[in-house]
């Protein structure tokens, strides 16, 4: 990514496509002293080497359990495939984060199915909600199942191996014409949460909708995401992990690394390449190359970070 000079005003479509081509087949990249450098295409040995020490955790996203439309009539099946890949990993990750849209319509049966499948990974899972997880009439199922110990609509933080993890919610109280929204209460909590923390603490922020502006015409961004990032200024290593856009996208801005994960359910088009961001129907043989999971590796003390995106196939 070092030779992809993203400007502050967003990412041009050509750039996005370049990055996606570059990222799509599974790349490994590191962040060392705030300077990103690409390690090129991953081979299995190198990936294993990266995972041999430090903290490795997984990200899955956008399971959309209950989705059965032409873009993928069997979203449950592809989630099972993703979990099977996790079970087959040579080195067991420490835990998993799920960046939202667990269910498609927030039905109890959809959450049940998701839990039944994801629990087979035998990993602790830290969830944040997507907008599809708050669709039940009383807006209570997500909170009941995943919100234990969280604040507000479901935000929280925790520590693992010296890394501070912050799960944020940017899918509630959205304003007409706007983007994702964190809100004043959550931003105030974030400030408190970071207060007094050593600036050398590696920070991982995860939320459903991208915190950076990917493509506002499709709502792909967070209205007050910049305010959250201001709070994180001064920290030497910040990694922001999101879902929502069902494709891999990466951006590095100073000390902040942004990354979005693939969905396990269905792909969405690259920004501006279709009439809408709706589910993208591709040939059956291509579908699994556009779905997948991400593995994130920290070499503690090294301030190094690597993200490996693995498609379900291809």
């Amino acid at each position, binding site marked *: 990514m070092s030779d992809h000079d993203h400007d502050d005003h967003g990412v041009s479509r050509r750039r996005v496509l370049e990055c996606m081509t570059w990222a799509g087949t599974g790349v490994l990249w590191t962040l060392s002293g705030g300077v990103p450098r690409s390690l090129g295409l991953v081979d299995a040995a190198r990936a294993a080497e990266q995972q041999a020490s430090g903290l490795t955790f997984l990200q899955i996203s956008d399971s959309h359990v209950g989705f059965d*439309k*032409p*873009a993928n009539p069997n979203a449950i099946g592809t989630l099972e495939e993703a979990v099977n890949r996790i079970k087959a990993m040579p080195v067991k990750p420490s835990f998993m984060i799920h960046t939202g849209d667990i269910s*498609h*319509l*927030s039905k109890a049966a959809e959450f049940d199915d998701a839990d039944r499948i994801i629990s087979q990974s035998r990993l602790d899972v830290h969830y944040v909600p997507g*907008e*599809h997880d708050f*669709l039940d*009439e009383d807006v209570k199922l997500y909170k009941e199942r995943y919100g234990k110990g969280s604040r507000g609509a479901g935000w929280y933080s925790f520590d693992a191996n010296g890394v501070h993890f912050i799960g944020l919610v940017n899918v509630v109280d*959205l*304003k*007409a*014409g*706007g*983007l994702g929204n964190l809100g004043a209460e959550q931003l105030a909590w974030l400030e408190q949460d970071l207060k007094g923390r050593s600036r050398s603490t590696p920070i991982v922020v995860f939320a459903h909708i991208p915190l950076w502006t990917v493509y*506002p*015409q*499709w*709502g792909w961004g967070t209205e007050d995401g910049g305010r959250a990032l201001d709070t994180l200024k001064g920290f030497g290593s910040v990694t922001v992990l999101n879902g929502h856009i069902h494709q891999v996208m990466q951006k590095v801005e100073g000390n902040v690394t942004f990354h979005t994960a693939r969905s396990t359910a269905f792909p969405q088009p690259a920004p501006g390449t279709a*009439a*809408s*961001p*709706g*589910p993208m129907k591709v040939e059956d043989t291509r579908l699994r190359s556009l779905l997948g999971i991400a593995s994130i590796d920290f070499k503690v003390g090294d301030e190094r970070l690597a993200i490996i995106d693995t498609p379900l196939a291809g």
Partner: protein
Amino acid sequence: MIQSVIRGASLAAVLLLVATPLRAETIKVTIDNFTFTPAEVTVKVGDTVTWTNHDDIPHTVVSAGKYRSKALDSDDSFSFTFAAAGDYKYFCSLHPHMTGVVKVE
């Protein structure tokens, strides 16, 4: 006698028509490709607007403080009858870049 009853009934029917100057209508708005079409409709007081979602993704129709649909899955509809004049701006609370307005005259 019978004739006058019939005449009376016809008169009542005519009066009823006069008392209801315009029949309330139902206006359709579709949701395709994350867009309300038409994005702006003008209706009369008493008219009903019905939104139907044709996308593979659920949407909502929310007019702050006025009306709020549940999540509309594919081919689900939501209707609201407008009892008072005014501009009713609305949006999809899941995809807030989707906006529209119902103007009630």
